């Protein structure tokens, strides 16, 4: 019995444009996006129209979620533990600037409680992070 000859056909030539486009996308995402470490939890920063453009700092960022959770230096902690941590961080470099990434829905009461702790830790000013409002 004769088997029908199976011909392994060469893939069509049009994989090349596909690869080109994938390479372009790859280069776009490598150059246009900023590789960032994911935060401990999601924070929806308040939206502003103006404000100076900030380079996202590497460390010294305090996260404050809408439900009151706190994180500093990639670790979630409670309010009592924040002050010694921040004081230690400031002791290493007294000119370092603290950054507060707080959720837009955080109440003034909670915000001021955290700010009081930062002041007690020895900081005198803080940088609030915001996102530009989309129009």
């Amino acid at each position, binding site marked *: 019995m004769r088997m029908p000859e199976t011909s392994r056909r060469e893939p069509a030539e049009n994989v090349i444009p596909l690869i080109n486009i994938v390479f372009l996308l790859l280069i776009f995402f490598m150059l246009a996006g900023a*590789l960032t470490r994911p935060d401990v939890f999601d924070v929806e*920063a308040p939206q*502003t129209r*103006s*404000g100076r453009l900030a380079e996202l700092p590497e460390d010294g960022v305090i996260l404050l979620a809408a439900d009151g959770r706190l994180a500093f230096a990639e670790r979630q902690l409670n309010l009592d533990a924040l002050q010694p941590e921040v004081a230690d961080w400031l002791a290493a470099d007294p000119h370092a600037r603290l950054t507060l990434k707080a959720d837009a829905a955080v109440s*003034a009461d909670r915000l001021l409680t955290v700010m009081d702790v930062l002041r007690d830790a020895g900081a*005198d*000013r*803080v940088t609030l992070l915001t996102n530009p409002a989309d129009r």
Partner: protein
Amino acid sequence: MEIETQPRRRRSLVSLTPLIDVVFILLVFFMLATSFLDWRSIVMDLPGAGSTVAEESPALVVSIHADGALLLEGETVEPNGLARRLSEFMAADPDRQVIVRPDDSVNLQRITQVVEQLQAAGAVRMRLDRGGR
């Protein structure tokens, strides 16, 4: 005269498929790991700080009430009139500190809205303070 036949295109020995696989994996990695958010910042003094320096003129107080009302030095101002009123004060003393006093239930989005108006009016030194209620 003999016409030379075109040389046959030979198939490359290296297969493209693993290359495409790897590039796809890299692409997916960069798509998931990069963020396109851009960030703005507002620099604020912390509550109770900044009062060690002798002030030429006392700080201006802007209160934000829970119902949305804005008060400048105890007087109610129109939501859009704050920047105009404040710039009159700031013109007299550009270094004057502005204290923002939100009610406890006011959220950060509202505070930053007001702070933006203060910046537009020329305020440089701002701090938050407890407004109570």
